[in-house]
């Protein structure tokens, strides 16, 4: 790729280290795409990070803003990007040229963990592995639209699309029916039959009321009518993929539809990474730790490695570090399956002492964590494998906002509550769950959104601006049903750009 025109290939001594780490990773059972490491100076790494890892993106100010912040953070010594890897085949990973060898080795081991995860985790199974090309392709298309329609107009539209890019359906990639494009075609024969409402053939008039009892026909008619009504509903079912709905139905121009399509595609590409943050980082950290401490570390590197590893894993008081939770949960699972601390027999055991010393010497740990990394995402990972002992050991607690003191305060350390809290935070990647329930609300061609309230209120200031984005594309008022401080409310962004609330 040679982003800056210089060679970014690894120098020979690092290439040799890469071979070494790669061999260890393979031997440990990691199964990864070919991984190309590039050595780049800090400024390039900041640029790449600003563009979410990709060397070519469509023109947009936010990449410039990201760059501004990364480069300042680096300059001021506040943050440093150690590693970056992108989910493509082959995978690309960047090493910062100013890092020490022990850091580079750690990063390599960490990266092989990520790439193994990308390749094998189920939630990544539908991602576009040629995203490097797609991103470059998007860049060309957007630039062309900018040439034709002007930079401001296209960029403004991109801003609108981006404000909706969390309104997609996380299950869509796995829903084969939804993937088939085109609505159900209506079959004329079926429609004729429908009018017959299940009436049986009858040649003798006097038998009619026995063969086709009026009550039955009536019931059938009602059922048909309700079915027909369902069909008329638009969309048929609540639609999570608001971007898709607008793409198909909003009165926008072809180029706008294409921009919307590109941004949606990119949003789906990044989705699995949001769904597996804890696992992905935990898995990669587990493996860099395994490979480094058991194999790759030289004697004189131990202190530096320990220092940096501890820095990444550090838990600040009051915060939960996904790297730490991830790695410890994997280690915990491995330990439990090695010792057989799972299943009915173990769960039913109430003797604390016996539980503590439970060891059936099963040795199933390694196998189990490989299985977990294959099938889980963060939600199922926490749901299935978080244990009361774990919550206890890592001193997790729940907190709530106290209106009176204006502070977040610790509530309790109850396992059930902690787990529920973590899960509700992970649901829908921590984003509000919102769908379009009606595209022809009150028969006025207005959109009705519904927010599935799972405990968190929406930030209405942001909701207003987001609904404005939909309004601009849809050109008709937009409503949202939500719950605010325990009350059901309906908010409307109307034709006069006003935002009004109703109970």
């Amino acid at each position, binding site marked *: 790729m040679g982003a800056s025109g210089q060679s970014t290939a690894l120098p020979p001594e690092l290439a040799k280290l890469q071979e070494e780490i790669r061999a260890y990773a393979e031997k440990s059972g990691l199964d990864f795409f070919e991984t190309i490491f590039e050595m780049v100076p800090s400024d390039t790494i900041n640029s790449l990070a600003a*563009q979410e890892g990709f060397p070519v993106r469509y023109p947009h100010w936010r990449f410039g803003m990201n760059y*501004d912040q990364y480069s300042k953070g680096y300059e001021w010594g506040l943050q440093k990007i150690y590693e970056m890897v992108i989910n493509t085949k082959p995978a690309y990973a960047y090493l910062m040229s100013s890092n020490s060898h022990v850091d580079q080795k750690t990063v390599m081991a960490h990266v092989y963990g990520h790439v193994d995860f990308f390749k094998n985790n189920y939630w990544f199974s539908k991602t576009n592995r040629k995203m490097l090309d797609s991103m470059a392709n998007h860049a060309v298309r957007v630039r062309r639209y900018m040439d034709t329609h002007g930079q401001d107009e296209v960029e403004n539209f991109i801003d609108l699309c981006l404000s909706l890019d969390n309104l997609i359906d996380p299950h869509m990639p796995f829903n084969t029916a939804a993937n088939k494009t085109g609505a159900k075609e209506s079959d004329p024969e079926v429609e004729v039959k429908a009018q017959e409402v299940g009436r049986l053939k009858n040649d003798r008039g006097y038998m009619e009321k026995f063969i086709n009892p009026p009550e039955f026909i009536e019931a059938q008619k009602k059922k048909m009518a309700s079915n027909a009504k369902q069909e008329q509903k638009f969309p048929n079912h609540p639609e999570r993929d608001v971007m898709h709905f607008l793409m198909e139905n909003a009165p926008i121009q072809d180029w706008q539809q294409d921009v919307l399509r590109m941004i949606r595609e990119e949003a789906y590409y990044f989705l699995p990474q949001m769904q597996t943050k804890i696992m992905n980082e935990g898995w990669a950290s587990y493996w860099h730790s395994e490979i480094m401490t058991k194999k790759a570390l030289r004697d004189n590197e131990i202190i530096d490695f320990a220092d940096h590893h501890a820095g990444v894993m550090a838990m600040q008081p*009051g*915060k939960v570090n996904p790297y730490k939770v991830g790695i410890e949960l994997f280690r915990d699972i491995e330990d439990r399956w090695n010792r057989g601390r799972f299943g009915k027999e173990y769960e039913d055991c109430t003797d604390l002492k016996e539980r503590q010393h439970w060891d059936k010497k099963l040795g199933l740990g390694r196998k189990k964590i490989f299985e977990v990394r294959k099938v889980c995402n963060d939600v199922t990972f926490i749901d299935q494998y978080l244990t009361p002992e774990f919550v206890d050991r890592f001193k997790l607690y729940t907190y709530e*906002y106290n209106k009176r003191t204006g502070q*977040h305060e610790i509530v309790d350390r109850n396992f059930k509550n902690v787990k529920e809290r973590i899960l509700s935070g992970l649901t829908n990647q921590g984003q509000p769950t919102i769908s379009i329930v009606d595209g022809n609300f009150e028969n006025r061609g207005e959109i009705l959104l519904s927010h599935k309230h799972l405990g968190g209120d929406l930030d209405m200031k942001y909701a207003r601006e987001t609904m404005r984005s939909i309004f601009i594309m849809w050109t008709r008022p937009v409503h949202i049903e939500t719950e605010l401080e325990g009350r059901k409310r309906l908010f409307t962004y109307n034709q006069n750009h006003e935002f009004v609330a109703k109970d």
Partner: protein
Amino acid sequence: MIGGVKRDHARFRQIIRGKIKQDLKKYIQHSEMFGRKGKDVVSIPMPQIDIPRFRFGSNQGGVGQGEGEAGDPVPGQGNPGDEPGEGQQAGQNAGEHGLEVEFTLEELAEILGEELELPKIEPRGQKTLKSKVDRYTSISAEGPNSLRHFKRTFKEALKRQIASGLYDPDNPMILPIKKDMRYRSWKSDVKHENAAVIIYMMDVSGSMGDEQKEIVRTETFWINTWLKSQYKGVEARYIIHDATAKEVDEETFFRTRESGGTLISSAYKLCESIINADYPPSDWNIYPFHFSDGDNWSTEDTKVCIDLMKNSLLSKVNVFCYGQVDSRYGSGQFYKDLLEVFGPEAEEVILSRIENKDGILQSIKDFLGKGK
């Protein structure tokens, strides 16, 4: 920086500039928030610009880690710059992150000029300030190899060979010797620039409170910024006065507070003598700015001031600016007196009344809007 990001970064800067323009009034009033970075760069804090998305409100509960009893506050609060750690809330507080953007004073002046539609100043007087600019437009027979002019060198060699009859057109072999070597070299261009001096005068008597001084400080920042963008070399002198006037440095100018009475003429006299001593009007663009709350000791003294302006100062300066910062104690009479004498349309005198912080923007426009 890779190409695309460079372009996006420029675009981002453009958007930031737009934001600053939009809220220029706010930024002008609060220029004390600006951080100075070196001589010519300021960093301006501003709210993060972000893409609006549906998101949860702040003040949500969550999961934390560490010691503590029920009811204890979660540590690390009140520091919105920190990510809340747990994946669930990542990005939730993104809107509270501040941006720090850096601008050179020149860029700032440009923004100010564009937004307030300030005309460029037509300098007067001779261009007496000399500045040297080196340009590599010349050729020399001596120099470092890195600057060797290949073509010229061979031309010289060719000339020499032809002149000495060594040149054979059938076998054109040209060998430069040391004498033929030519090097790129520089020429010094002397540029003549206009020089300018700003003479700030301020009433530091008791009736000028902190708020008034803050306004003056803000105004001087923007006046400096603008005039520096218009002239290559700008000097600034500072005079404070109550019943007597003295010249001070910038620091003292804003810090001093006296309790005496007010004789404005003392400052004008000092201003005149500074001009006479150091700034011949034929060579300098001169900008006296006087700020007070409009109280003068006596009508007698006001008359002295007006005479001084009419007979001496106004003929020497580009424009004389008087800014009256209203205070609770000031009568504001001086403004009225000047207005009576010079009228609102005076060419060489600009009067501006600044009622409070909100008036700063308009006042800057008053002062600089005439292109003097």
